[in-house]
């Protein structure tokens, strides 16, 4: 019995064979040789160290980390299962296969539960190469999966950071821009008031354009601020009764409804898990648009909801001017407008805000429409929010 490690190896093959570095924990030299022979016979190019105790094992691990550990269950100075503790302590992910005399099924299963990768009988060594191959394969897959998960986590992190930066930028930019803009808007208007008609007509036009432009910039910045605020306030989600929210929206739109003679109806709407303020914004925006983009007839607007798969699907349908299909996506983009400012007022931010809100809530929003024949804006809200499940678990 040698106390230091002994190297055994095979040299004679010409064809390239999978190299395998094994660390044997075995006190019987013959048994060790049999193990190596079994591996060589199956085509491995084996380099094996043999040790009998913990100290030697640890030294060998550090000197030449093996790809696999093959340990006898019972040794005079040690127990094969304790190799697992050493491996754990050293932070090494190396499969350990017990190569031992009969142990009984219960003990074998126990060993595997405790972390041994496999258990091979000394008089069944023919199984050993396959066992090793399987163990190495599993390890490789484990490592690949781990790598992929790490990469994903990193990407998600970067994306979250980038998004946060953008939102902060949008918020700061629009917030800090308001002050100098206020000055420009105020003084161009004062100039316009004081000097219109007192200089030449070019001046009148210039002053007019300047002050209009400044005022429009103010509204744009306010809209941008509102857009960037979606999701910033971090209000909690809860049960939102969409009927109540729709009614509130109609109250806010009271004067628009009266002016246009609009008739707004809604079916029985569900209670959903969402941010109440944001849902109110969505309903008010969509209904408001339905009223605004009306044709010659008074607007007729209908708000409905139905269950589709795992979602509530809402629709806000109108008899207004409609939208040509080629524009169906671009209308949801920030500041995209399809009409001149003189035809229909607004900056084109309402739908972008709706989209942001709905998507943050885990839903989708789209429009079904043809130019000249009304529109139906549809959006989905998941039946159960993730927070809702946690709430239910807690109560």
């Amino acid at each position: 019995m040698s106390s230091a490690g002994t190297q055994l190896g095979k040299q004679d093959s010409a064809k390239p064979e999978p190299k395998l570095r094994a660390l044997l924990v075995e006190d019987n030299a013959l048994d060790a040789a049999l193990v190596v022979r079994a591996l060589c016979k199956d085509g491995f190019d084996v380099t094996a160290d043999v040790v009998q105790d913990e100290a030697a094992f640890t030294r060998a691990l550090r000197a030449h980390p093996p790809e696999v550990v093959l340990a006898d269950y019972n040794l005079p100075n040690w127990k094969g299962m304790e190799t697992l503790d050493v491996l754990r302590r050293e932070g090494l992910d190396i499969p350990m296969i017990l190569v031992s005399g009969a142990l009984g099924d219960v003990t074998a299963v126990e060993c595997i539960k405790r972390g041994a990768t496999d258990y091979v009988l000394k008089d069944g060594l023919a199984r050993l190469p396959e066992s090793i191959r399987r163990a190495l394969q599993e390890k490789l897959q484990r490592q690949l999966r781990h790598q992929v998960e790490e990469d994903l986590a990193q990407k998600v992190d970067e994306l979250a950071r980038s998004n946060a930066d953008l939102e902060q930028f949008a918020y700061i930019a629009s917030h800090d821009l308001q002050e100098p803009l206020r000055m420009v808007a105020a003084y161009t208007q004062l100039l316009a008031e004081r000097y219109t008609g007192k200089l030449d007509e070019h001046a009148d036009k210039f002053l007019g354009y300047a002050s209009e432009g400044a005022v429009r910039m103010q509204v744009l910045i306010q809209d941008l601020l509102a857009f960037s605020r979606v999701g910033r306030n971090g209000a909690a989600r809860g049960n939102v009764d969409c009927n109540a929210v729709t009614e509130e929206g109609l109250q806010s739109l009271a004067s628009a409804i009266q002016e246009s003679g609009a008739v707004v109806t809604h079916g029985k709407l569900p209670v959903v898990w969402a941010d109440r303020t944001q849902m109110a914004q969505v309903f008010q925006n969509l209904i408001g648009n339905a009223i605004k983009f009306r044709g010659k007839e008074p607007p007729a607007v209908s708000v409905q909801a139905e269950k589709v798969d795992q979602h509530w699907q809402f629709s806000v349908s109108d008899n207004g001017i409609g939208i040509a299909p080629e524009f169906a996506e671009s209308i949801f983009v920030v500041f995209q407008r399809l009409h001149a400012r003189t035809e229909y007022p607004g900056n084109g931010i309402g739908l972008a805000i709706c989209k942001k809100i709905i998507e943050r809530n885990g839903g989708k929003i789209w429009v079904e429409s043809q130019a000249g024949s009304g529109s139906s804006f549809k959006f989905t809200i998941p039946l159960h929010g993730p927070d809702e499940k946690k709430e239910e678990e807690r109560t």
Partner: protein
Amino acid sequence: MKTERELLIVDDNPADVGLAREALTRCAYSGQIRSVGDGVEAMAFLEHRGKYTNAARPDLVILDLNLPKKDGLAVLAAMRAGPDLRRIPVVIFSTSQLSRDIVRSYELGANCYVSKPGNLKDYFSAIKSIEEFWFGFASLPQRGV
């Protein structure tokens, strides 16, 4: 005793002070309008120090919050700390609509809080409203000698 009204505007933006002056002219406000650009100067003015030895005591102070050197809330606190200045009505006039700024202003003794509107028409209305109330109907503590 009818003496000329004295208004002190504390605002670091001369353009904003200009707007206030323009608005007050349109209200036919006929009193004096003084302005200072930071909190330290504001205290010097109110306490008649340095070049402000002969400054008149204001009947009303219109105070912005965002000021260099010493901010609006600090000026307010200093005014309310002394026996002399604490009766002078203070209108906070600021673009901030943050709840904590509003509440803090009241806690420190501001008489009222008016948001500076973004558009010109509303801005002029706000100034007009301030002028009409404080110089039209409110009883202001008489100036000490």
